[in-house]
């Protein structure tokens, strides 16, 4: 097994120390960083797929994500040193809406988005509608993601869309909603753009959305 394959394996298994050790060896041996990043991205996509099929569970996925982060801490300075540019798949600002403190669904989506190369700004829970927009403006986001677990906090999702309209920014961002009570009908009523029934679906949808938006912007 190559060193890159070993690193990918350790990451998938959530073996942080072994992953870090193997990465140090790989970097010392001058490994191809593009190949390493590709290997890690594929490994984490497989982790996400196995999680969706319930072959592994959230603790295993979180340990894999933690190992991946530890590896990237070593790889990123080396990429900078070699002036290798890595383009994020997209930038997402995400949070649980005002009045709602439920975070697990949002956190699963964040883990999977980061694993697939998105830059994610997690605003946490109980986030005011305007704060989503301020952060999106600050970081030049492509997507705003708003999660709500309670029917009585869902109106705060619509408030984000309404504030975007009021500020003349509605077309600038793709707004995706999530949370157990959220349905396709609610997304339409709220005036949002899309809805992820589960984390994997949300990630795959956003990959396509950002690609489409960037292609459109390049025209």
């Amino acid at each position, binding site marked *: 097994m190559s060193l890159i394959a070993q690193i990918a394996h350790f990451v998938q298994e959530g073996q942080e120390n072994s992953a870090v050790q193997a990465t140090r060896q790989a970097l010392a041996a001058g490994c191809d960083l593009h190949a390493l990043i590709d290997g890690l991205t594929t490994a984490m996509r497989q982790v996400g797929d196995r999680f969706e099929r*319930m072959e592994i*569970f*959230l*603790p295993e996925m979180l340990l894999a994500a933690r190992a991946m982060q530890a590896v990237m801490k070593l790889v990123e300075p080396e990429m900078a040193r070699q002036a290798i540019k890595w383009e994020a798949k997209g930038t997402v600002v995400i949070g649980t809406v005002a009045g709602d403190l439920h975070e697990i669904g949002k956190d699963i989506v964040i883990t999977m988005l980061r694993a697939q190369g998105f830059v994610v700004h997690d605003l946490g829970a109980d986030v005011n509608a305007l704060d989503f927009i301020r952060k999106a403006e600050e970081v030049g986001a492509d997507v705003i993601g708003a999660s709500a677990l309670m029917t*009585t*906090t869902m*109106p705060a999702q619509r408030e984000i869309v309404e504030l975007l309209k009021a500020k003349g920014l509605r077309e600038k961002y793709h707004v995706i909603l999530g949370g157990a009570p959220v349905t396709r009908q609610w997304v339409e009523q709220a005036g949002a753009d899309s809805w992820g029934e589960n984390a994997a679906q949300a990630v795959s949808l956003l990959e396509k959305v950002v690609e489409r938006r960037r292609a459109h912007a390049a025209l």
Partner: protein
Amino acid sequence: MPPYKMWEIMERANSGPFCEDEAFIMDVFMPKMRQVIAKYGIAYDPANPVPADDALADAVWQAGVEFFGDVGVLNVDTHRIMRFDAAEIKEALYHVPGEYRVGYGKDARLFRQRAVEDAAPPFCIFSPDITCDEELFLPSCLAYLQEPLADGVCASILEESMGLKIKAGTPTELAGVIEHAMSLRQAAKLVGRPGLFLVAVGTAESDTGQIAVSNEEWGVRTSDSRLVGALTELKIDNELLNKAVHYQQFGCFTGSLTGPIYGGYAGRAEGTAVLQVAYHLMGLLVHQAHYQMNFPFHLHYTSNSGREMLWIVSISHQAVARNSRLLSVANGFLNAGPGTKMLLFEAAAHALTATVSGAHLWEAAPAHNKHKNYATPLEARLAGEVGHAAARQRLTRAQANDIVCQLLARYEPMIAHAPMGKPFPECYDVRTARPTAEYLALYREVKEEIAGLGLKFPY
């Protein structure tokens, strides 16, 4: 519980060991869960969704107690862990009275702890567990309150009040919670059960909303109950503590409402069961609750009628029933919607599993607990009847396991694509609050089929 503990909780919420949210889950919660599952040899057995293994139930209890003691509960507002030592846990368990008289007048009921395979029927709380249109709220309350097996009722949740969308923590919520409380109280009087035990009000997400409805005349009374929840997993915040303290000071019965997630931080079935036991201790020590309301649910399906979920329901309730006097209620979360055979089979499987495992019943949340108006009292009626039948005939866990396996065979393959069914107004005559002839016939057909599996319904 002695009231001085409330002050102890307030103090501990601000002065416990510091811990950030992510570290609490990654470095405290998850490693300890792995450790106790291995230490106590807990293993899920898909062949027996209703296990009859006392040693396993006791192991789940011991694992839950050790887990709770070592992990504690994180207050996310203060970033402090509230921990309780073994002596404090024993003290709290010692003081559990094991029974309460709830409701008032002729409608009062005894709500007491049940044992595994108890001959006493479960206390049945009927609840749609879902939102409904404002104009359907009163008819829905009337329909649920008319059910003779209902020892208590919890109403639907309002999304709108006077045409305004209710938003938590705003004046629209205050309007909605009062409409909810007054309509439910009015419905109880209309059906001639003014003193029935009510659990209210689900429309109030915020502490302010709950506090606004404490009123002996038109709102929630001291003979009623309120719920206070947790954040995923084993976390709380000051708003939840506000509710718990208010309920104590107002004097009503507190239910600790927790739903450990299968596939979430606790991992598989084993961890979810251990966590549910730990939540009983959180309810007792932090919320100082009078009963625990449990809705473990599947991460993908938001239900607990699947095989692994029934195992969790069964073994965690057995663990609690065998080792404490805690009152524990099992809340059915089902995949299919009203007006379908699948929903009725699921309701029966959940109620049967819970009843022989020592739980009380809270039925039921159909259609993945997701779709407005998709709940009726008829599926709750069948669940209650199954619970009464199983207790009255002293069904053993092994006998129940056999029946549950036969019920699972009827719906398990359809869980991922469960039929949505029909909303309340298509299953009930809204004007009379009675089921349609079509749904009633389906219910009778399914009840007969279940009787053929070995359940002896009293009527």
